[in-house]
C-alpha cells in the first residue's frame, strides 16, 4: 500500500518542477488527496492537468489506491 510520502515523491519525480502535497483522506491508506503545483499544467485543460497526475498511478487507481482526489495549480 503506498504511503503519502511515496505518492508525493512519485508525483514530483514524474511532473516537471512540481510540488505536491498529499494527504491520506481517511487514514486508511487508500484514499488520497493531492494538491499539485507545476508550470507543466499551464495551457492544459483541467481534464488534461488531472490526467497528468492520475497517469502517474495508472492501474493503481481503483486498485490499491481506492480513491484519488486531485487539485492542480500553476505557480
Amino acid at each position, binding site marked *: 500500500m503506498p504511503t503519502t510520502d511515496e505518492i508525493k515523491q512519485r508525483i514530483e519525480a514524474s511532473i516537471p518542477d512540481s510540488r505536491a502535497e498529499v494527504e491520506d483522506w481517511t487514514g486508511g491508506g487508500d484514499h488520497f488527496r493531492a494538491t499539485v503545483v507545476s508550470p507543466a499544467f499551464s495551457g492544459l485543460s*483541467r481534464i488534461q492537468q*488531472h*490526467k497528468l497526475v*492520475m497517469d502517474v498511478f*495508472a492501474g493503481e*487507481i481503483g486498485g490499491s489506491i481506492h480513491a*484519488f482526489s*486531485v*487539485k492542480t495549480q500553476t505557480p
Partner: protein
Amino acid sequence: MSEQQTENPLRDAIVEAIKENEVILFMKGTPEAPACGFSMRTVQAVQATGASFAAVDILPDPRIRQELSAVSNWPTIPQLFVNGEFIGGCDIVTEMYESGELHEALGVETPAPGDNTGVSDPAASAPMGIENRLG
C-alpha cells in the same frame, strides 16, 4: 486499432447514451441513493445547478465501468458528459460548480456573485429543481 470490426454492444450503448443525452452522469448508485461519496458530491453539484440530467448506475455490471473508461479515457467514477463531451469527475465538477463554470457548461443561469453564501456546499446552495433546459 486493427479490431474495428469487433462487436461491442455495451460500448456502443454507452456511446449512444452519451450522444443522446445533453447531460449524462455515470455514477455509483442512483441520484436518490448514491453508493459512494464522490458520486454523491457530483450528483449534488449537478442537481444544485437546476439542470436536467440523465444518470446511469454503473454498479450492476462491472463491464459498464470498463467500457466507459475505455470511451472516456478516464479511470474513475463518477463521470459527467455534456453535449457528448467529457467534462470531468468529482474533483473537476465540484471545482466548476464552485466557480460557476458548471452552470455555464450546463446552460443554466449562473448564480449572481456575492448573493450566494453556500456556493461551496452544493447540497446547501441554489434552489433545486429549476427546469431550464437548453433549446
